């Protein structure tokens, strides 16, 4: 198993370097002059050159790449032309917000998707199954930005039940950072009003974001449950008079959850990079918004930083799934060693 883990880790490192090369190449071949944009629309040629020199953009690409790789090795992701902060500190500011949003959304998706999948499987081809099918098809088909806007209009504007957007109410001061996760920090500092306000602000974006994941989890879980419930050992359990609740909850769900868990892992990694629209609609100050704002300013260092971070997340999710498969199915390990 250790050899297997080492091989996967080596591959992960290689993939990360590949991602780094591709991101750097793409960032530097797209049209646009970041120095000119950063210097401002009225800047003279000498002002543009000042910015270019300050950020090392006047150096040959090979030198820039070498500096970038060397920087990354020492934990320096460069500096943003737009925010004038280091990319590392920007990521530290924005990533926790995205992490909280995605984690919350995934908790809702799993919390609802798994039971609904079980219900649909147990009540296969009844109205319950049909209803969950409608939910799952809608979850995949409805674009996140549209759903977000509709929820915003209905629940926030028309009914006034929830805030329109943002992370906290205007007069609500965020807690002093401990973990940089707002809700966690508010809990740790005992700021209950802040916790409540943060939840109220998070509800709509989380629901919007969770919908596609909920749909997938529900469908996969349903399919796996149906398959599992057909197995001989389940028939045997039924024959022994074990209650349906016990069969489903104790024997079937455990086996049906394996593929669902793998999908949750992959989906989680994917969601971390797919929050742009939801963050835009709800003014959620996360990494997606940061990436978009950087992209429209041709601010390459943050784009590369975000790509690397999200790539790393995704790879880690894949890595963990690989490990899980390897642990569950020894044949995978042997195939990897061959």
């Amino acid at each position, binding site marked *: 198993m250790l050899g297997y883990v080492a091989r996967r880790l080596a591959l992960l490192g290689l993939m990360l370097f590949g991602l780094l090369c591709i991101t750097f190449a793409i960032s530097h071949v797209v049209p646009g002059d970041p120095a000119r944009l950063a210097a401002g629309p009225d800047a003279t040629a000498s002002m543009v050159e000042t910015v270019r020199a300050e950020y090392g953009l006047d150096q040959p690409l090979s030198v820039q790449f070498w500096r970038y790789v060397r920087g990354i090795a020492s934990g320096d992701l460069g500096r943003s032309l737009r925010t004038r*902060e280091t990319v590392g500190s920007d990521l530290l500011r924005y990533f926790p917000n995205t992490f909280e949003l995605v984690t919350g959304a995934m908790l809702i998706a799993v919390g609802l998707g798994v039971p609904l999948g079980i219900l649909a499987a147990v009540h296969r081809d009844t109205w319950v199954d049909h209803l969950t099918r409608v939910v799952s098809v809608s979850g995949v088909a409805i674009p996140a930005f549209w759903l977000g806007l509709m929820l915003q209009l209905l629940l926030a504007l028309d009914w006034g039940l929830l805030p329109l957007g943002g992370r906290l109410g205007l007069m609500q001061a965020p807690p002093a950072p401990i973990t940089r996760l707002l809700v966690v920090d508010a809990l740790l500092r005992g700021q209950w009003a802040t916790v409540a306000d943060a939840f109220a602000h998070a509800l709509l974006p989380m629901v919007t974001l969770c919908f596609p994941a909920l749909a997938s989890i529900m469908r996969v879980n349903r399919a796996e449950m149906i398959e599992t419930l057909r197995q001989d050992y389940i028939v045997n359990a039924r024959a022994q008079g074990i209650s349906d609740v016990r069969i489903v909850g104790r024997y079937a769900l455990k086996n049906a959850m394996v593929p669902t868990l793998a999908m949750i892992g992959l989906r989680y990694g994917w969601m971390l990079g797919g929050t742009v629209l939801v963050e835009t609609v709800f003014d959620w100050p996360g990494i997606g918004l940061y990436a978009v704002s950087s992209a429209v300013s041709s601010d390459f260092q943050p784009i590369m930083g975000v790509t690397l971070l999200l790539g790393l997340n995704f790879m880690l999710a894949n890595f963990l799934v690989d490990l899980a498969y390897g642990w569950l199915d020894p044949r995978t390990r042997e195939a990897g060693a061959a």
Partner: protein
Amino acid sequence: MSASLRLAAVVATLTLALAAPAPAFERSGDRKILVFAGRQEVPTIDPSVKYDWSIRMAQQSLYDALVKYIGNPPQIVPWLAERWESTPDAKTWTFHLVKNARFHNGDPVTAEAVRFSFARTLKLNQGPAWMLSDFLKEDGIKVLDDSTIQFNLSQPYAPFLSFLPWWYVMNGKQVLASEQGGDLGQKWLTTNAAGSGPFKIKRWEQGVLYELEAVDNYWKGWPSKDHVGGVIYKIVREAGAQRAALLRGEADVVEGLSTDDFDQVAKMPGIVVPNFPGMTTFGIKMNTQKGPTKDPNFRKAVCYAFDYDALVKIYNGHAVLETSPFPNATRGHVAVPGIYRQDLAKAKEVLAKSASPNGGVELEYVYVQGLEEERKLGLVLIDNLQKLNITVKMVPLIWPNMVARGSKPDTSPDMMAVFTTPVSTDPDAVAYQYHKNSWGKYYGSSFYANDDVWALIDRARTTPRWEERAPLYAEIQKRIAADAPEIFGMLMNRRWAMRDHVKGFQFSPVRFTGEVDLYPLAIVAK
């Protein structure tokens, strides 16, 4: 507190948070806080480093300058300088400072602070430096005494005063005390202020909101007893969400709504929409160095074929057509006789004199991706130029790519939709957009070339007396119009939507789109 009590407290607060709609404006103690929902971030407030509308709105609130633009038409009024004089050749300018101005930390605003601020901006060579750097060097700034400062320009520069409202005065002592590695305080001033303006920073949550607090004993005093006690600038990136925030009472002022949204909210009770002609010109720049648009007659044909009324219709009537390359509020603006209006017969007549007498060419129209009005104008162009047997290919690009395309004559598109806001009311600010030195900038994407006009521009900016400058600018406007480097479009009205308890709004067209002077604003609750 027991776990169950804690849980109950959270649930109770959550219920309240869910159920209670936001009040019309926020309160902090006895202070009335105005909420401004804007789409653009304020990445830095360093006055020497950068400006755009949101940055400048913050800078204007935190800092003071020697003089200030006020009103419509914009007037330059004394601010930190109570008076000034210049030599007849406009080379030496002397400013006398008020004695009672104080920085937020209590230090007096002195001539040395003014010197430091100008020298810092020139040294960093960023932000507003371009406005004066050709004429003012660091050693040309002299402190005559604590409250008198003199600027000795390297050559006469008549528009000098018109740029000073954007050169904010910083407290040098504070800045240098916060210097890191010889950066002249750049890192610190990105999110901190060292100014003497009517507001100081209370909260700075980058990318989320920025809260300013009114300075109670502001040295200049306040224009109203109901002046705002503070301002929260909240970033709301979606126009729909901005509109919703206004209607729900979560925002007092919003900018940047669509034309239709502004019209709709203007009809709603409790909301007012100030509506004023601005100085931002919209033009379709044509590449004068390459392709069919290199031919002046071809460009004129395009200008005569264009349906100008469509421009105003697209903005539901909230725009006026340009009557000159210069915006109406620019000093010395003249309505150019015979400025282009749609005349198909004339269009065909001048096209016949061009290298493409029968049309038969395709022009590329580049516009900002996602900007609906520019897309609609592209459709108008397609329809209009079809009548000259010219086809139009619409190419939406994101702004950085547009800037890149327009930076070289070889890559600049045949036609490029461009909004331009001059930074001062002096005609030089607009005329210089047509100078060779503006090639490569987005507003220079037509690569206009006319040696005579360039010489006139150079002469006009160094001529001290307005009586002599005015006819030069009249001539410049006529000549540029005659060369047709662009379709001279329209001046879109500036609009904001605000709750009717917001009073004291003062419009000045020289401010950027979206920018509001927060100082005179008041909240008068019913």
